[in-house]
């Protein structure tokens, strides 16, 4: 196995319920890459792998929530309905977006009270329990914290760009 095939396996493995792929540090450790040029070498590997797999309709992405590099199907070829984990459950998706924006506003965590106040909808507690069960959030007393899972399933950068465009209208 060469570096590219190891990288392919590292970036396409499921580590646990919330995490896929590998961090830069892990990749460097697995491939025994050291020295002051290790970051350049890492980016070179990522770029090369990206070129190899592009014709297969898959691409390398970065999850900003836990700094993991992972592989995802190109959105132009994947079935977006199947990719949507909240298909037919718009209320659950709305609650999750509310938590995401609250966490962004408050440096990574929010409270049940705040979500309840913002969402102004019935059954929010049920939504929170369901999201916790599916691995999207950690609930601890009143505190809500996002797990990295949504960063793999949702293109957060694209979403915020769309939202910014929408609010600009």
């Amino acid at each position, binding site marked *: 196995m060469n570096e590219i095939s190891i990288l392919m396996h590292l970036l*396409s493995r499921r580590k646990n319920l919330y995490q896929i792929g590998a961090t830069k540090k892990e990749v460097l450790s697995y491939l025994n890459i050291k020295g002051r040029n290790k970051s350049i070498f890492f980016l070179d590997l990522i770029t090369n792998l990206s070129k190899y797999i592009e014709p297969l309709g898959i691409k390398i992405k970065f999850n900003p929530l836990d700094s993991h590099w992972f*592989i995802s199907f190109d959105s132009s070829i994947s079935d977006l309905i199947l990719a949507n984990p909240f298909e037919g459950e*718009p209320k659950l998706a709305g609650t999750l977006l509310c938590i995401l924006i609250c966490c962004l506003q408050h440096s990574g965590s929010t409270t049940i009270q705040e979500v309840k106040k913002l969402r102004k909808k019935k059954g929010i507690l049920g939504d929170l329990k369901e999201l916790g069960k599916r691995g999207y959030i950690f609930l601890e007393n009143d505190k809500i914290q996002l797990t990295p899972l949504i960063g793999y399933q949702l293109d957060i950068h694209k979403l915020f760009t769309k939202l910014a465009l929408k609010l600009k*209208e």
Partner: protein
Amino acid sequence: MIEFQDLTEEINKLIEKIRKQIISNNVSLLDLELLPIFEKLEQSLSIYNIKNYSESYKEACELLSQKFEELKDLLSSINNEKKFYEYIKSNPDDNEISQLLKDCWNDSFIINSISSNFLDYIKERFLNIQKSPIKIEHLEKSIKHGEFLLEIPKHGFTEKIMNYFELIKKKLPCQFYEIFEEDIDQIKIFEHFVFILHLLQLGKIKYQKETEMLYI
């Protein structure tokens, strides 16, 4: 004769269409692709249509410049988390949120078949590959007296030629073959032949082709 395409009309129509869409506020420039316009311009440009194309190119560049301005505005507003917070606070409809999320979903590519044990084994293998740095080793200088593989001739080449000249001088003039009469060894004959050539070149001896005579 090669036929040249003039797509000025088509390109201008495209530019006009984009302008109308922007003016009517139907769409943002960031949602539009300007690349097809530039591709068309590049692919069909020739000396025959350059005059018409220059105006179209100028207009396309203006659109591109506007697009950059919009991108700059967007980037400056993108960090404004407060705006997003206000949006959620306005209690948007769940279907509206679903529409917003619609094409933002990722489908992760996961291979579960590889074991973590195997990855660890591979990691160990990589760790064991010692990439030792390149060592520059200086050659040892040995001082050896007396013996040397290359034999240095006792006399210089010119000296040898001159010695040979002294030897054959008494025989001259004579026939060319007579010079080698006493030589039996082929290597010696060859060596003496080379000497003769050099002596001829130096003008020490002369050769008459017709009589095959060597003389001084």
